[in-house]
């Protein structure tokens, strides 16, 4: 129930943030200087930070829901959850390193 609800809320958030992200990286020329300039302003940092958190949680929550469709054993489900938490922590750390470099 919580994972279903979170999928909806993060989906709506991503819908807005991801299209901002896409229009910045595709409708304007993308250079290193532009990226650096954007990452130095707190507004863009906050936007990217929320995009990172929402996208990682949405993706791994989606994989968890797919896993629930096919994995019936409780122990295997717990193992899947453990793996997903591990991957999620790693991806979040990677994103933090990018944003706060």
């Amino acid at each position, binding site marked *: 129930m919580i994972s279903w609800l979170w999928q909806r809320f993060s989906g*709506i958030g991503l819908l807005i943030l991801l299209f901002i992200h896409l229009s910045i990286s595709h409708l304007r020329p993308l250079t*290193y200087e532009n990226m650096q300039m954007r990452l130095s302003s707190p507004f863009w940092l906050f936007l990217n930070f929320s995009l990172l958190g929402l996208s990682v949680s949405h993706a791994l929550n989606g994989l968890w829901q797919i896993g629930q469709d096919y994995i019936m054993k409780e122990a295997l489900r717990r193992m899947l959850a453990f793996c997903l938490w591990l991957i999620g922590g790693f991806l979040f750390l990677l994103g933090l*390193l990018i944003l706060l470099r």
Partner: protein
Amino acid sequence: MLKEVKYLFCCVLIMKKYLRYLFSYHWHSGMLAWLLMRLCGIALAIYLGFHLWMIFWFGQSSVFFGSLLQMREQPGMRILETLLIWAVCYHAGNGIRLILIDFGLGIRWQKSLFAAVMMLSLILSTLFVYPIWHD
């Protein structure tokens, strides 16, 4: 040699049985929407990890980032990026459709909604993909 031929034959038979099983379903637009949503979701989850890793690795300096941008110019990469953007647009559009259906809105028009989502995703992805192919 005969053993390998026998093995291959067995594989073909199993494949045939599986395909017949797959097409014994009643294929309809809702099923296609669900399948595409799931496949796009898995692809996007894999891409997210790839994307973060690439930006982390190539974002070290201006020169590194330039080489990434150059790699992006290759035709294969352009095709992959086009597919990626279509997947994003489709996943987003079908997500809206799913939320509407969860609220009980438009259940009767879900087939036309699926067609609308397809059209919308094609139009939106064309808009975003245009600068990749024309610069």
